[in-house]
């Protein structure tokens, strides 16, 4: 985070009149798109969020040039903390080359002139949707989550006035009842993603729609975890080395997903796998959802069942992708 809190506030960049020569329009906008006052407002909310882990801080979310629900909260958080010395990685579903990740990375390359990377280890800021990278994060890294619905209780209680009270009184019985009802009906907790967590022993928090597979990575993480919900206008955070527990019962302890198969490309047996349909006769394969993790493993010589084929395919460059 190079742009420090309380740094000098340059005035808004001068805006040229419509129809001027600058066809791209990028230099009509402030560094990282948001004006400095807005960034300062967001940084203050981030500090508050870090001070009260898991608490949802309302913030004056701005209208972004990308649609609501497509990462506007994450983008505003990233825009507020990013500086020219940062290295940005953007993933969606764990992959760097999914369309929306590409689009957001292009946005920052354009408005913040920032270096981008696909390597988890090299990034200082990682914006993500639906996954936490497989490679453990380190101190100094910031993971920015895009959040569609910050309120973990929303599906139980649609009214904001009520859910805020429930958080204030730490009244989370309803959530436990819901999990219990799953057990009564299905014999197990049937929540597979957005699996609620208790942060710092105080606030129940939505981990965003990451698979519950990623939940254990949140607790005690050396990196800063920031959450931005643009449409719902909330920011929350998990500071480094904070206790994050997935809700469970003594006789039904929390467990993550397991696959019977390994990654068909890199052979990893401990990563989150995506299922890929190969034909219309039930043929399928499983591959790492974290493309950087998979690529790094293959570069180190690990191969899976279809690894050799895939290596050829990768060398021939996948169709439609520009990597």
């Amino acid at each position, binding site marked *: 985070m190079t742009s420090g809190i309380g740094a000098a506030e340059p005035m808004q960049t001068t805006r040229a009149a419509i129809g001027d020569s600058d066809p791209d329009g990028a230099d009509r906008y402030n560094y990282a798109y948001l004006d400095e006052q807005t960034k300062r407002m967001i940084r203050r909310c981030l500090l508050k969020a870090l001070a009260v882990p898991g608490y949802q801080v309302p913030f004056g979310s701005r209208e972004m040039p990308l649609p609501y629900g497509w990462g506007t909260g994450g983008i505003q958080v990233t825009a507020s903390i990013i500086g020219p010395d940062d290295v940005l990685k953007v993933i969606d579903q764990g992959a760097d080359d*999914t369309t929306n990740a590409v689009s957001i990375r292009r946005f920052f390359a354009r408005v913040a002139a920032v270096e981008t990377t696909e390597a988890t280890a090299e990034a200082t800021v990682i914006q993500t949707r639906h996954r936490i990278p497989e490679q453990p994060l380190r101190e100094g890294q910031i993971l920015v989550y895009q959040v569609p619905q910050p309120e973990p209780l929303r599906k139980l209680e649609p009214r904001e006035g009520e859910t805020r009270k429930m958080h204030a009184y730490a009244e989370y019985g309803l959530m436990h009842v819901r999990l219990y009802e799953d057990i009564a009906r299905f014999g197990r907790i049937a929540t597979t993603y957005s699996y609620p967590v208790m942060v710092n022993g105080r606030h129940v928090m939505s981990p965003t729609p990451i698979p519950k597979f990623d939940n254990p990575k949140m607790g005690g993480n050396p990196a800063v975890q920031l959450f931005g919900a643009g449409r719902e206008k909330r920011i929350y955070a998990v500071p480094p080395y904070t206790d994050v527990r997935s809700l469970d019962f003594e006789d039904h302890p929390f467990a993550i997903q397991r696959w019977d198969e390994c990654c068909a490309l890199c052979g990893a047996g401990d990563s989150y796998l995506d299922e890929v349909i190969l034909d219309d006769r039930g043929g399928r394969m499983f591959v790492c959802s974290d493309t950087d993790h998979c690529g790094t493993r293959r570069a180190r010589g690990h191969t899976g069942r279809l690894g050799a084929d895939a290596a050829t395919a990768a060398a021939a460059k996948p169709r439609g*992708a520009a990597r």
Partner: protein
Amino acid sequence: MYVAVKGGEKAILNSHKLLAEERRGDPSVPEVSLRQIDQQLGLAVDRVMTEGSLYDRGLVALAIKQARGDLVEAVFLLRAYRTTLPRLAVSEPIDTAAMAVRRRVSATYKDLPGGQVLGPTYDYTHRLLDFALAAETDAPPEALEPAEEPVAHPMLRVCDVLGGEDLLEPETPAGDPASGEPEPFDLTREPLSFPAGRDQRLQNLARGDEGFLLALGYSTQRGFGGNHPFAGEIRLGEVSVEIVPEELGFAIDIGEITVTECQMVNQFAGSASRPAQFTRGYGLTFGHCERKAMAMALVDRALRCRELDETARYPAQDEEFVLYHSDNVEASGFVQHLKLPHYVDFQAELELVRRLRADHGDARRKEAAE
């Protein structure tokens, strides 16, 4: 052999090129100009200005052109631009009593000072397609005779007539920055908070989607929220916008905008502490957006149920329901985000459903064995 097909940067760029081509259409047809959109699709411009909450016909015409006439997309373009603008000043409240009126109708009085002024309206046109327009002869419209007397100015507002008799509740003044009161709430700077004050609500409704408000307003008329409203007055015209620069200390006129204002008059039986009185529902839009202004006024009144001790039973009376879902930029984005990949979550659900099916099968087999 497996080849990962994922949309890459090149695919996105190509999609943009394709879009530009579609937008232009057949190149042998002359390109539409921003002035043409402004002048000949004026009501589309009015709607986008209102919901985009930016009064700039030129920029709106550009947004409509860029969005190929998709008005919700145009609102989005305009909002994304607006958010980058510095807020230089907060204007004084506009004075609609001093409006240069072009249209003014009241459904509560047959005649009143200033009279009924029909102005430009589709209301009494027969909705027959005018094939003369299809001929594109560009014949000038029929000349209009000047009226015998000029439109009254200023024109008395119906609500001021009723208010004078104390039959209509007084309007609560919003914060006045000049006299040291807090500025009115600004949704573009702060998040909605509940219970919402009237300033929050009216700003939200003014920016809200016309279709959504129309349906909600309609629902109150059909019994889902029962106030019998009267269209006290609808007026369209130009008003001055004034600001008080700090260094001057007095108001200066910075320009003129066109607005549509609707005052709905509703019954209120009174309560233990208040005698029976008519209550207000208020609608205001940029430009000429009469349908929106009327729908807004109905919904504003429905949402006042809490302050008027009415039981909130229906969707239009539920402020969280209405105010959280009125914004078409938010709604459109979130509905359409379902297009984004969700395969990580779907995989998690697949794994669960397979496991549950396996459990089910095991249980059935076990039952059969017993």
